[in-house]
Every structure is written in C-alpha cells, then in structure tokens.
C-alpha cells in the first residue's frame, strides 16, 4: 500500500511538473465551452466571420435543450477529440519507464507488479478525471446559462459513469503498452481499440452488453434523464478493466 501511494504520488507530481494538469484542463475547458457557444450563436458567428453565402439559417429552428447540448459536448467533443488527446497524453505511461530503465529500478525493489500497474492506472485516471471534470463543469455552467437548467445530480451521475469509461481507457493503454514499445503505436492502437468498443456496442444487444463501451450509453442516459441504471454495463466495464490489468501483469512478468 505504501509503495502504491509513493508511486501514484510520483505520477501526479510528474504530471504537475510537466504542466499536464494545466494544459489538459485548459483543453477540456475549451472543448466544453465551444459546443454550447457554437450551438447558441451559430447564426451570429456565420454573419460576422463570413462564408455564410448560400447558407440559410431557419429563424424558427427549435432551440436545443440543455440535455442535448451537454450530450453533443460529451459525445461529440470529449469522447472524440478529447479522447484522442487524452490517449496521446498517456501513451508513454509505461513505455517511458521502460525506455529509461525506471521500470527495472522500481521492480527490483520490494514492489509488486500489481502496485506498479495500479499506480499507473490511478495516477493517469486522476489526471484525466481532474481535467475532464473541470471541463465538464464549465460546459455544464455555460449550458444551463445559455439553454436553461439541467439536473445537477444527473450531471454528477453522468461524470461518475463516464469516469469508469476513462478508467477502462487508461487500463487499455496500460495493456497495449505491455505489447508494443513505440509510444506512437501505443496511442494509435489504443485509439483504434477504443473506437472499436464504441462502435461494436451499437451492432446488437448482446455486443452492447459485452462491450465496455456500453457504459457510455449508460452515462449518456443520465444526460437524457433516462433513469435506467444498467448494472450489467457497469460490471462489464469493471470486468474489462480487471482483465486488462491482469493481462498486463502477465505480460510484464513474461517479457
């Protein structure tokens, strides 16, 4: 436990020293602000920026609800561009340690592989969720200011469930890092596999139940105020996280 704490703390201090907390948070704040602003002021932006020739904006178009705006911010911005940047930000989480010899120095101490991997998972998840939560909170604030109120408890439940998806993504990056040495290849593979899990959940109900991506639907349901807490999706996501970590543990022991 002490080793887990020491290693996790080092991950967090390193992220702070590299200004990761700042730039990643700023990035998610910008993503969080952009969607509600563009949705609200699209016609004004087109008028002022130009390039609106031939585009007709229906003055009677329906005003989207705050839930819809939040959903497009999270699904469209956070879970696409945001996810890619997030994965790139932790593509070196194991590779850097391996390439610098740090991993060997740590693992020759009385440190279990489990503590080492859990510290990587926890450290990178905390960094990610710190940035995402602030970005999402700013987006929530802008959205209710521009489009009307939205249940704060539903928003919190959404962030909680979305954090499980992020935990899965970090565990996936850890697993892939034990197969591949190049950080770029780790990032590309993690992005490809996570997109696969997002897509596969839409194919049929069984795949939805068996995909860790099912947790995303559960999270989005909180924004749409569909109160269907599908525990199976939560269990599937947690099972995949455990599977990824066990597999990574096995790989590191073997090579």
């Amino acid at each position, binding site marked *: 436990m002490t080793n887990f704490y020491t290693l996790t703390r080092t991950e967090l201090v390193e992220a702070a020293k590299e200004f990761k907390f700042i730039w990643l948070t700023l990035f998610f704040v910008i993503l969080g602000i952009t969607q509600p602003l563009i949705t609200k002021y699209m016609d004004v932006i087109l008028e002022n920026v130009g390039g609106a020739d031939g585009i007709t904006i229906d003055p009677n178009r329906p005003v989207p609800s705050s839930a819809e705006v939040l959903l497009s911010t999270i699904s469209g911005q956070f879970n696409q561009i945001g996810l890619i940047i997030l994965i790139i930000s932790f593509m070196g989480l194991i590779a850097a340690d391996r390439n610098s010899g*740090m991993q060997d120095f740590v693992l020759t101490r009385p440190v279990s592989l489990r503590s080492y991997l859990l510290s990587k998972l926890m450290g990178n998840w905390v960094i990610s969720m710190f940035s995402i939560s602030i970005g999402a909170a700013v987006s929530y604030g802008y959205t209710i200011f521009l489009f009307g109120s939205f249940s704060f408890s539903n928003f919190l439940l959404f962030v909680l469930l979305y954090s499980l998806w992020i935990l899965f993504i970090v565990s996936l990056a850890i697993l892939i890092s034990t197969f591949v040495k190049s950080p770029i290849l780790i990032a590309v593979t993690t992005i490809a596999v996570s997109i696969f899990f997002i897509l596969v959940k839409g194919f049929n109900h069984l795949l939805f139940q068996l995909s860790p991506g099912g947790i995303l639907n559960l999270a989005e349901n909180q924004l749409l105020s569909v109160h269907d807490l599908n525990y199976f999706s939560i269990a599937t996501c947690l099972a995949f996280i455990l599977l990824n970590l066990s597999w990574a543990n096995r790989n590191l*022991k*073997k090579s």
Partner: protein
Amino acid sequence: MITVEKLHKTIKKRKILSDVTFSIAEGECVGLLGPNGAGKTTLIKCMTGILQHEQGTITFNSNPIVQHKKNIGYLSQLTDFKPWMTCEESLLFFGKLSGLDKGFLKGNISAVLEEVGLKDKENYKVDQLSGGMKQRLGIAQAILHQPLLLILDEPVSALDPIGRNEVKKLISRLKKRTTIIISTHILDDASEFCDRYIIIKNGKIVGNINGEFQKSDRKQILVKTGNVPQTSEALKSSEVECVEWLSPNTFLLTGAEELDLKKVVNDFAAKEMDITSIEFYERGIKEIFLEMVSDT
C-alpha cells in the same frame, strides 16, 4: 550465496536462456561475459525477479530470490531517472520503495552521495548530470539499502573514458564489502575487478573461469627481436607452423605440437635473428572469451 539451477527462459517463443546453472559465493566479484544478445540482461532480470522464468530455480541463501529483493542492489543498463527529480529526491523515492524509514534515509542518502562522489550535486536535477554522474547516481540507488548482492548491468559501456574511470574506481571500492555480479562485454574492464568469469553464449553457459587463470598450452611462443626479418615466413621451421607478425619486432609462433624454447632460440640464432625476449604465450580472459564465443 546465489545459486542458479537449470534455468530456462523463453521470450516470444524464442529460447533466451537454456539450462543455465552456476553459483556465486559471498564476497566474490563475478563477471558475466557474453556478446550482445547472448542473454546476459535476461539472466540478470530473472535473477533480480523482474522476469519470471519457466523452468529452474534461483535461490539466495537457499530461499527463492523473490523473497530477497531487499538484499539485492541493481543497476540497469539505462539510468535515465525522472529528469525533474534532484539526486536527493531520486534516492528518497527509491529508499521509500525499498521500505527504508525516513530517519535512516536522511542520514544514509548523504553518506551514499558522498560515497559515489555526488555530495555537492545533491540538489542538482537528474537532467543536469553528465552520463558518468547519472551512472554513479544509479550505483547510489543500488547501494542505498545496503544490499548483500550488487548486480551491475553494463555499468561502464555507455561512458566516455573519464566517466568510465570514475565508475571503475567506485566499483573497486564496493568490491571490498559486497558480492558483485558485473555484466559486460568490455573485457579489459572486467579483468580489473573480477575474481571469476561466467561466459554466456546463445543463452548457454560456455565457460566458468577463475580470474587467476592464465592458459598456456606451450604451443605458442611470443618472441621479441632486436632486428627484423624480411618476411615472417623466414621464421618458420619444421616445428613452427605459423608466424603472426604482431608488431615490427614481435612475433607469435604457433606449432602443431608443444614448442621447445631451446630449439626456437637455436633456430633464430641460425637465421641471425637477435632475440631480446622469449616466453610461452599466456592467454588472458580476452583471448579465452573470444575462443569460447567464436563461431569458428
């Protein structure tokens, strides 16, 4: 102290270590020699518990090695610690992971930095250190918890002559109080501290040689002359099959059978060659190593 028995290790379906068996006694300094890719680093990683092996046993004082991580100090080939940490912070980090208490660490970090010659650099960040200093910091983290066994993987290979000299001096000092295993392919360096050599090739132990060992089979003679013959062929005789011209005045004579020094001296005198020195050629670890790992 440490015993490796019938060790086998496969990585990605490739046999890296095969039936590796040896033991090292307390106080010894053993050189683990082998060409690149021989399996030295994999063997060391198995010995330090980083890698799991499929077959065989590694014991430390008769117990499985994983129970003795606290008694092992390890220096990896790569010593790029966290660049943002200072030397002191790096040692504090490793000390905490070794389970050392803060009180002990505070005093010991200063002593260890002094020992490796980095006392005045304790507040320097790792990325401000030279290659030699990083290597010495690597040794500092390896000896911080006062291990009984020190395993150094290529400690001087990547260093310039100044850095190499600094690290060699440090190893010589540590040798007096700790059992050391040094993996290297730089044989001249190994011969400066090692009591014994374990030679590994293609994952197998091909030699286990005492450091005092100097092999002389009396089939080769080293001759230094005052004058120079026109060709080396001129020095051949019925006994001397081959003559290697090592320098303008130095020749290595090789015979099919054992050579007789008297006869060689007489032969040279007959050919009007002045001999300034003559001796049986003794092969050092370099020659023995090359002989053992050579494919021909």
